[in-house]
């Protein structure tokens, strides 16, 4: 299991005097700002990838950027690793504590500092929940577009660290497209403003580096996000297909027709049936695949474009096409999709959510291959797919209490990610590499590329103290992981066309 860090394959740090560290940290934190007992620290032992667990050395709970800076300066001086944590909803083990680390929780940075409706921006602290921003902006007719499934709970700081997506990315972009300015502190204690109040900033685009940096480059203490006017009208169409391939063709044809839906989601039979049992959304339970296509904008345009989408789906062989009757049914259609993950609880005690992206046109091939691999590993897989942007979420169903199943799920998950790379895609669309996909980084990137990432990290964090063992593998790990592949013989997925 990857929740164990390996001194031969992961970064290592000299052991330190815990009492001395506590003394130094107490001096820079408020009285209630440091947790030291296992009982108090237990809630920080894992994030949304609950299978990976480990206790940190200490937990720091700063309230101000100056306190964050104080913690980082102490840790840098003593050579102590630091793992920053937002709401802990991440699915890749990015906030998994490194042994002996100071876990830096940003949960007390929970205020919306200002909303400027004229500039269409909101200045918020990193611990503010994603959905809370849109709720606060709603009074001005504005919203914050990226909407990960965890938006009720996840924090904006974590969203920036992961470059979070959601179901509306195709039209409105990812986090990187929707933020304007960051305040951050480096491990060396430098306070930096990245981006700015204008649409661009002088010098290199450091905002791009910070977004999706998974806590490896610095600690974000404030985020200015862009807000968009709330669309006047939204409508969703549901299409059922007897063959997954037909659904995939419909997706390509919709995009090729010049239509950019606000959301374009696909679920396979297993996923849509579980969601239907969970939410009773009226999904076509006999379909092999189902497409949800949402359009927003002026009412006349939405109606016109949806009728084109309906024609395209029918031409692609849809067995059923229908519009949500009203706003309540539209909400219900989405509730089923957004509840697809928890719905898996009906099918198995545990599920493991995978997050690869593939070129859209490879969808049918990839789903067939996943089906084959699922059978070979003896674990069912339900597929939920952000079809518009090629982001696939296979959900591997298993029982953690059954001996060997968890390890099999991990192996199958890794194989699915390597399949995504083999067809020209990527090992993570929106969940991040974290700890979970650290080995698959070696499948996607060459030694020189991994070295380039390590050099970028070293530019920000020369001692490698920020979130070690995550996101960027050591060369030793890649050598080990690569050797394993050679040992197993031929190139994986040799029967698939490569890009």
């Amino acid at each position, binding site marked *: 299991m990857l929740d164990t860090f390996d001194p031969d394959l992961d970064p290592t740090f000299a052991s330190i005097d815990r009492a001395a560290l506590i003394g130094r940290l107490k001096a820079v934190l408020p009285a209630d700002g440091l947790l030291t007992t296992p009982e108090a620290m237990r809630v920080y032992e894992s994030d949304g990838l609950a299978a990976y667990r480990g206790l940190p050395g200490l937990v720091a709970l700063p309230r101000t950027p100056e306190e964050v800076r104080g913690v980082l300066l102490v840790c840098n001086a003593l050579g102590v690793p630091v793992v920053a944590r937002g709401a802990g909803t991440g699915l890749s083990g990015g906030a998994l504590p490194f042994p002996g680390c100071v876990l830096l929780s940003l949960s007390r940075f929970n205020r919306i500092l200002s909303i400027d409706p004229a500039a269409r921006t909101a200045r918020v602290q990193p611990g503010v929940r994603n959905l809370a921003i849109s709720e606060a902006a709603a009074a001005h007719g504005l919203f914050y577009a990226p909407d990960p499934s965890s938006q009720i709970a996840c924090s904006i700081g974590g969203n920036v660290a992961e470059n979070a997506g959601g179901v509306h990315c195709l039209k409105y972009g990812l986090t990187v497209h929707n933020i304007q300015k960051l305040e951050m502190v480096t491990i060396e204690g430098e306070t930096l403003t990245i981006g700015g109040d204008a649409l661009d900033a002088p010098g290199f685009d*450091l905002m791009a580096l910070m977004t999706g940096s998974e806590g490896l480059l610095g600690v974000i203490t404030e985020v200015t996000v862009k807000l968009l006017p709330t669309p006047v009208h939204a409508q969703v169409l549901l299409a059922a297909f007897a063959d997954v391939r037909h659904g995939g063709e419909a997706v390509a044809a919709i995009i090729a027709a010049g239509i950019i839906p606000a959301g374009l989601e696909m679920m396979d039979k297993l996923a849509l049936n579980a969601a239907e049992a969970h939410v009773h959304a009226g999904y076509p339970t006999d379909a092999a695949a189902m497409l949800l296509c949402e359009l927003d904008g002026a009412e006349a345009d939405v109606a016109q474009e949806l009728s084109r989408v309906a024609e395209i789906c029918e031409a692609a062989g849809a067995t059923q096409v229908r519009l949500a009757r009203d706003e309540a049914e539209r909400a219900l259609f989405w509730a089923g999709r957004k509840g697809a993950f928890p719905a898996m609880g009906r099918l198995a005690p545990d599920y493991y959510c995978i997050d690869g992206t593939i070129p859209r*046109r490879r969808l049918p091939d990839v789903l067939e291959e996943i089906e084959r691999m699922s059978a070979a590993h003896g674990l069912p897989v339900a597929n939920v797919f952000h079809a518009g942007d090629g982001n696939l979420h296979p959900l591997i169903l298993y029982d953690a209490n059954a001996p060997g199943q968890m390890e099999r799920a991990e192996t199958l998950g890794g194989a699915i990610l390597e399949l995504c790379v083999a067809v020209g895609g990527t090992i993570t669309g929106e969940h991040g590499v974290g700890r979970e996909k650290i080995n698959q980084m070696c499948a996607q990137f060459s030694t*020189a590329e991994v070295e380039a990432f390590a050099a970028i990290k070293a*530019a920000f964090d020369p001692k490698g103290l920020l979130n070690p063992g995550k996101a960027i593998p050591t060369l030793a790990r890649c050598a080990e992981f690569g050797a394993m592949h050679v040992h197993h013989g031929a190139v994986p997925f040799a029967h698939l066309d490569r890009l």
Partner: protein
Amino acid sequence: MCTTERFPLPISTASRDADLGEALAERVKLASARGEPLRIVGGDTKAFYGRATRGESFDVSGHRGVTAYDPSELVITARAGTPIVEIEALLAGCDQMLAFEPPIFGPASTLGGVVAAALSGPRRPFAGAVRDAILGVTVLNGKGEALRLGGTVFKNVAGFDGFRLMAGALGCLGVLLDISVRVVPRPRAERTLRFEAAWPAAKARLTGLMRRPLPLSAAFHYKGTLYIRLSGPEAAVEAAARDLAGEPAPGDIWDGVRHMTLAPLASARLWRLSVPRTADIADLDGEVLRDWAGAQVWLAGEENADRIRQLVQATGGHATLFRGARDGETVFTPLPRPLFELHRRLKAAFDPAGIFNPGRLYEGL
């Protein structure tokens, strides 16, 4: 020509297409070993932009050709030396386009140069900048190693976004070999409206419009006239045009703004002020054209450089001496010391021998 074939690979838009990746890598290795700086040149249409750089001219324009384009994937991949006009023509044939509307200063202008300079046109506040559209690059680092950063898919968070870092780096971090760019459908309808209004009133109008879900795609103001472009599905554009009730104006006015042929954008000495759209800037001496709904102010003339920088930075923005810098004049807004130190380290991470366009962006970079 638009092909509906599923794998239109490779597409050759010109008989001169060639993959020079290996030869370029060899040249970089040699320069690196000798510590000889290289001045990277694509179409050589933006030599005026940025600081003077020393080094031997390194022509990369021969590395050209579209290598992948499938309209249903909304992405095109091309070698960096591919002329941008060829790419735009290919996309237009499939009713698609580059959302960021880059200025093109000559037919030789290349995709690599467009990305390295990261200049975006009028659509930028509404559809994103160059950096927003890049999905991946292959770039030669200072050791002559080809690094593939990012990829060809929209949602991709594996590794740092080093590919976006190349946008606006002016070649200081590496030699771009190929680039994957996200494309968008061309809007089905487009209308341009004009309004007679001094800037304060025009700004107030724009601020109000920007808060509503309207199909705005550009807005510029020059000499008492505000031009607004609406783009999108027919019904939304027509409804907004009726609502806004401006004078109809010809759509080709945007070409002059985008390609900077419209006076005063062609001036010999031109400042680019990137400011918050809602900011008030004191009167500056010179001719002013405001694009990006007010977020990009072009200033032609001889206004004092220190005064410009002071006033612009007070708004939270920054000023670039876009064209006409004299010897030794500061071009880009100086960075705070810790930020510059970070730039220096990143430069060293990609280009340890310091051979790529030294000094083009900042002295010492």
